[in-house]
């Protein structure tokens, strides 16, 4: 997989510092699973976080603090960390999954088990359950077909997982990551060949520009 479009440095910093909410983190983390280069970048940013932590002027802890911690230590290897109980599917045999973690864990299935909902015009979506009030969904756009032109009232992240799409800003293949905001009016087209499957995160309802699409938008929940 040759990745041409990466998340911006400032988005990676927001991820490394812990400032992003769940849906945005899901898109960045899923790209990181596909992109060693960005993993390295995030590791370097975390090292800067560690350097800043080390350089902080220490604030004395109470005398009882260490004893309080000591009283809680168990010699067991690991108490259960606070995590979301999500199904992760580690295949032991067969080909590697198409959808990487953490996305696969959120969907509870690989690409062949996605519960697609019809969107009309040959397109499908699958809403991904996140708890930050931001819309995360998988989209499946038929090969060679346009996605209706729309503008946004906010931010949109798109991560291609299979196939490709193009718009005025370039060509996006598997692993590529697009950040769009309200200043970008784009009309993405799925590339010919195979359906384009991508993870799309949007923090505001899409505003389709075509009247027909605007009329059905409330019915589709997008």
């Amino acid at each position, binding site marked *: *997989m040759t990745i041409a479009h990466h998340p911006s*440095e*400032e*988005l990676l*910093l*927001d991820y490394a*510092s812990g*400032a*992003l*909410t*769940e849906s945005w*983190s*899901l898109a960045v*983390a*899923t790209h*990181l*699973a*596909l992109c*060693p280069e960005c*993993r*390295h970048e995030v*590791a*370097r940013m*975390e*090292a*800067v*976080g*560690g*350097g*800043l*932590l*080390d*350089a*902080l*002027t*220490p*604030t004395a*802890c*109470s005398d009882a*603090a*260490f004893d309080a*911690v000591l009283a*809680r*230590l168990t*010699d067991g290897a*690991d*108490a259960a*960390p*606070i995590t979301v109980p999500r199904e992760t599917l580690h295949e032991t045999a067969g080909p*590697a*999954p*198409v959808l*990487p*973690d*953490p996305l*696969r*864990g*959120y969907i509870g299935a690989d690409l062949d088990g996605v519960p697609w909902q019809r969107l009309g015009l040959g397109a499908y979506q699958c809403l991904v359950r*996140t708890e930050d009030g931001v819309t995360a969904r998988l989209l499946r756009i038929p090969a060679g077909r346009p996605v209706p032109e729309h503008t946004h009232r906010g931010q949109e992240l798109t991560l291609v997982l299979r196939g490709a799409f193009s718009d005025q800003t370039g060509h996006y293949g598997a*692993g590529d990551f697009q950040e769009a905001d309200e200043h970008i009016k784009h009309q993405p087209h799925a590339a010919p060949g195979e359906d384009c499957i991508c993870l799309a995160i949007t923090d505001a309802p899409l505003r389709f520009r075509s009247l027909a699409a605007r009329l059905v938008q409330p019915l589709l929940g997008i």
Partner: protein
Amino acid sequence: MDDLIVAVAQHRDRAAFRELFDHFAPRLKAFVMRQGLDSQMAEEVTQEAMVRVWQKAQQFDPSKARASTWIFTIARNLRIDFLRKSYRPEPDPDDPAMVPDAEPGGFAHVAQAQEAERLRAAIAVLPDDQRVVLHLAFFEEKTHPEIAEQLGIPLGTVKSRIRLAFKRVRSELGEDQ
């Protein structure tokens, strides 16, 4: 410091843990107080972080991160779990769908100790305006649009300060591309 975590992981060494605690707990406390927590609450969060250091010590890989980096990630995740009651999805290194690093051990070929020194030096020479942006990001968990709003400067300026800061850090670490 790295060796102390390894000693805790391999031998459940309480003396090593005490040393780690003495170095990191006061820094962790300062770190969470930067989020606006009072001293007592900050101490509770610090204690929780140090318990996690003990529990997760076996997951520490000195070839991938330095002690302070690893402890920073523990404190960051704790802040999200515990204070924001939110989730932060992460890639899973054991996932068969993960695209592996180009070379074994990935990019961890810079001598760790040396890198620690150089990183400290790199951060020390950053111009104030870039350092302020990094502080807001790491200590106050602000996204770059929030930083722009707080400092009353355009978003583009925040982006360029972030880029300049990391460009400088990269070049200090001898990784300029």
